């Protein structure tokens, strides 16, 4: 069975980002169709599709939509377009190449949930995406797809654009809500601040990722079942992966969810095209910088949420970063930890202090000033951020950013002990420190 392109169909259409191009290629037909259906029917299609959230956690969108406490209004839809996980750049291209598809997805979600207010939060650095989305939204308002009495019906939805100010943490949904409210982007503690119950302005709020919502028009046009028939349940439909690093052909690829393997994506001619310079795979990050690393033996795992979770990592935001045999693992590890250290929002102590401490220890090891005890220290600091260093992670922190910095260290410290040893030097040269 050939797999249809669900979210990336218009990426090759020159004017796919304009209203004309979008309408010409079937755009807004799902909206028209949905307006003939009841909101509950629209919601039911999404449930049937078993569409997993594409932002990182992979929670079924249809189920999430049902979480708002009854009778509490107003409610809001917030679109998380703050894609900033290193290695992840699928939402950006969706915003640039097919903004109307996202807008239509938002409208369908609002219709299904009876909402009239949607906030579209776009990462601050995505200047081109912002321009495209803003232009598309203006067109959509002009054409009557958005705003008061959409297409002459009683349905009214307003979409408000908001540009981020450049903080990774704002990709976390509660931090995004704080930022949207005009506050410093710092996550809220869950519980009690589950957005579906207490979200934007203290009201029930559904937060969905750009890619998640971009799937909705296809689902409404083709039916939830057609979507569910693709992929391997519960990972249905297609999914867009960003492949980067030491591959011959880095890029963004839409593949069938649940059946395609990492090997297909990294080595396949039509995708990653194999390791550069004919080299060999040393390690790869399967789901964005937060995810624990995978290695050679994981290549044949399918891109399926459950399988990857059980193998000790996650598909996360769909970013696959490939490292070949030339990679200095200690430096690579330091690089990722440094990112999280710098992007820690500073709210809770274990993340604020712990991630920077990890970075400093790694830097010291790289600088040749490491001590053999530092390896145990690294792991113990990791343990104090993420007790047990298990997967899925436990945390002493408010949000998962702290444990994200633990992932690379825990992934490599034993497997590549020899590389750490090389930096630490001969054991005999070490000065013994008396510790009481």
């Amino acid at each position, binding site marked *: 069975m050939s797999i249809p392109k669900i979210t990336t169909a218009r990426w090759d259409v020159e004017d796919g980002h304009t209203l004309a191009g979008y309408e010409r290629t079937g755009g807004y037909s799902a909206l028209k169709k949905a307006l003939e259906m009841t909101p509950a029917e629209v919601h039911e299609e999404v449930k049937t599709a078993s569409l997993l959230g594409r932002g990182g956690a992979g929670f079924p969108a249809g189920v999430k939509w049902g979480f708002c406490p009854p009778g509490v209004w107003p409610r809001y839809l917030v679109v998380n377009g703050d894609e900033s996980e290193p290695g992840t750049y699928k939402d950006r291209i969706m915003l640039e190449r097919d903004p109307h598809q996202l807008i239509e997805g938002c409208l369908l979600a609002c219709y299904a949930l009876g909402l009239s207010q949607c906030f579209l939060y776009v990462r601050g650095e995505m200047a081109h995406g912002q321009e495209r989305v803003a232009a598309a939204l203006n067109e959509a308002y002009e054409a009557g797809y958005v705003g008061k009495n959409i297409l002459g019906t009683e349905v009214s939805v307003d979409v408000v654009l908001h540009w981020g100010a450049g*903080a990774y*943490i704002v990709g976390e949904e509660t931090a995004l809500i704080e930022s949207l409210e005009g506050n*410093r982007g*710092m996550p809220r*503690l869950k*519980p*009690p601040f589950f957005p579906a119950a207490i979200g934007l302005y203290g009201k029930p709020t559904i937060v969905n990722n750009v890619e998640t919502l971009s799937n909705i028009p296809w689902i409404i046009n083709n039916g939830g079942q057609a979507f569910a028939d693709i992929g391997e349940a519960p990972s249905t439909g297609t999914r867009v992966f960003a492949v980067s690093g030491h591959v011959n052909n880095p890029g963004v690829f839409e593949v069938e969810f649940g059946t395609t393997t990492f090997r297909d994506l990294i080595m396949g001619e039509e995708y990653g095209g194999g390791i550069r310079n004919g080299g060999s795979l040393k390690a790869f990050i399967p789901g964005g910088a937060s995810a624990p690393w995978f290695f050679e033996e994981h290549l044949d795992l399918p891109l399926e949420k459950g399988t990857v979770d059980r193998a000790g990592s996650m598909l996360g935001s769909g970013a696959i970063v490939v490292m070949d045999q030339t990679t200095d693992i200690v430096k690579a590890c330091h690089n990722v930890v440094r990112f999280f*250290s*710098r*992007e*820690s*929002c*500073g*709210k*809770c*102590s*274990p993340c*604020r*202090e*712990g*991630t*920077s*401490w990890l970075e*400093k*220890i790694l830097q*010291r090891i790289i600088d040749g000033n490491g001590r053999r005890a530092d390896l145990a*220290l690294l792991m113990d*600091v990791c*343990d*104090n*951020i993420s*007790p047990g260093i298990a997967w899925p992670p*436990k*945390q*002493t*922190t*408010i949000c998962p950013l702290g444990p994200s910095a633990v992932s690379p260290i825990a992934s490599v410290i034993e497997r590549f002990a020899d590389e750490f040893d090389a930096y630490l030097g001969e054991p005999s040269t070490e000065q013994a420190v008396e*510790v*009481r």
Partner: protein
Amino acid sequence: MSDDMVTFNVDGNEVSAPAGKLVIEACEDAGVYIPRFCHHERMNPVGMCRMCIVEVDTGRGPALQPSCMLTVSDGMIVDTQSDVTKKAQDGVLEFLLVNHPLDCPVCDKGGECPLQDQTMAYGPGESRFVEEKRHYEKPIPVNDNVYLDRERCILCDRCTRFADEVVGDPLIHFMDRGNQTQVNTFPDEPFASYFSGNVVQICPVGALTAKPYRFKARPWDLAEVDSTYPNAMGDRINVQSSRDQVLRFQGVDSDAVNWGWLADKERFSFEALQSDNRIGSPLMRGGGLNKADADGDELVAASWSQALGSAAKAIADTTPDKVGFVGGARLSNEAQYAWTKLAKGLVGTDNVDAQLGDELPPHALLGLPRATVAEACQPGGVIVLIGCDPKETLGTLYIRLRHAVVEDGAKLIEITPTDTGLTNVASASLRARPGEAGTVARALLAETVSGHIGGVDEDALATARDLLGSGPVTVVLGRGSLSESVDSVLEAADAFLDVDGVRFLQAIGRGNTMGALDMGMSPGLLPGRTSLAAGQDAFSDLWPQLPNSDGMNTAAMLEAGAAGNLDVLVLLGADPINDALDPAVAAKALATVPTVIAVDLFVNDSVSKAHVVFPAAAFTESSGSHTNLEGRITAIRQKVTPPGTARSDLVIAAELARRLGHDLGLETPSDVWEELGPRSAVHGDVSSAAIEADVDGVLITATGRVAFAPPDQAVSREPVNAYALRLVTARRMFDNGTMVQQSPHLAGFAGQASLRVNPYDFNRVGVADGEEVRVSAPKGSVNVAARVDPGVPKGIVVLDYNRSGADARVLLDPGATSIDIRLESKGGKA
């Protein structure tokens, strides 16, 4: 077990707690202390420091949870001692310490530092951190009194939450991110809050320190006692001293009063009490060679014997109706009783007035059904604020009212001429024109009105009226502006008396005014909230000279003094030259009365005109009690010895009585309650033991026999002159008051008086912001710097009261309903 209790298990013990209580607090109630830094019981939880993380099992297996964010539920199992809990807490403490400078030996907080204490109790004991610590310039001032050391800061969000949530001055905030996160002010904007000192008290490390205390003492050298600050709120304080010097006031968490908070005006005023300007010995008019000489020009030191003898002779040599006593609101309840007994019972004059004519009259303070602060702030209640701005005059009442509105769903309706500190949280703001608060109140309570009433339009009135029915109504009543007749405020109070179950909280300014009135320091009153006539029987056996007819109030005494009809004027902590509404009459009275006797802490402008001066002990130097604006009597406790030979006000009264040939029969505070209790209609439950026993003191709930007297008729309104602006005078937190001016770290905040004008009116005058203008009223004129203030409605100007540069009293006319002024640039152009 009632429905709202739940049972949970902490460390193996079944305990019950109210549903909805936070685990950290429920455990503490059960005797299990969970370490914490960011949690503060008077602020919303934030879960930042992670120190209080414990293993909690709610049926899905044990998991680490911050106990400050989690409420207890039935069957919950909390383990504060498990290995996982201990490892996590150990880890958090290590994280907090990795960048902490450990400069404890030179840190003010050392010895009373939660970080130090919890490191001892829960910490790893040694550091594994070998890298370089975070460095910042240390310390930096965030305002004139508070220093911030960002190296010591553990980023618990207490100070920033306090500024934002508790007092609504969000002027300090987190900056930068990750490991560089720091607390700071915005560029070029200091942490200009009246309440900034509180952040020093709640800081769990030594990051925030107060300039007046820095490097003055170590905590273990401090001796302390709980006491009451004798301001109108009666804020509970902890007085801390070392080597007989008061070095610090800290707020004490009293549920009923200040919740642990203090305004800077109170917190840093201990410096005034330590001032070299305090009077240390009796003073008398002197000539050469320091000899007492009634016609001398200067005040010179005298002996107590000389001074008492001279004062007693002057009183004995005249008739009771020619003796007057002004002031007394500074005194403790007990001293007030002693002086009332001396004046009314022994000297036999009713010319006694603790008030200076600038506040609500006694019948409005004693005769209206009174609310407690807690009643005024009850969740879901309706607060009607009439005529005053608590943020400027009653700092901790402002905090309580703000909390009621922001956190507890109370509705606030303002009937004030201009914006107040509470305007941004008010549900309705009715900008009544000066002198028309009563009209607006009547219109608000009327079924329907149309058009503009007193400057308020019908829609605003209707909006506010809808709120009135949403809960029990408390009126916070004050006389904020002296340029309008007090009758307009009284008329408003009278209107609200028709509301079912209404209660009043009187926003008074001078500290122990309520105590003074309860002790009879007002013409026509006797102790126990009763009139001269009604109280005769109770006191006649002990008080041989009870006057028969009502005496003069302060204004009448000063008039009489100026006219040569008073022989002795006793100033009990009063400064009529600076505080009486007519400064000229006050000055003339002090120059004319043959014998002026002053009892005070400082030589102020009026005391400098006295003939005999007795040095008094301040509230940190003598024990007694204080009555706050809700009628709550709390203990004042001595901590240090008075300067020189200064004595308590009570002892001075007793000594003077002895020289007059009487034994006052009062030597200690408890003597007063033993004598007064059986004779007073309202003080029956009060005893020194009862006051001492409770941090919240004794609340007088009985009502007295003084009736509220509404104004005879509706206040007549002057038509608004299109060319004139209506004057409001406003008291500010920091002014030329003695305590502020004698405190080096507060005096600078008083600044120069300014006139605040709406931008529309301002533009018509044609001057630059801050330029001097001439303000002309029928009675006089002043020059003052004018400032644009959009919080002032059109047609109104607000002049600071009791600040340097412009004496607002020149413009006042006590008889007028309101005062219209003309505003001109000094060049003369209008």
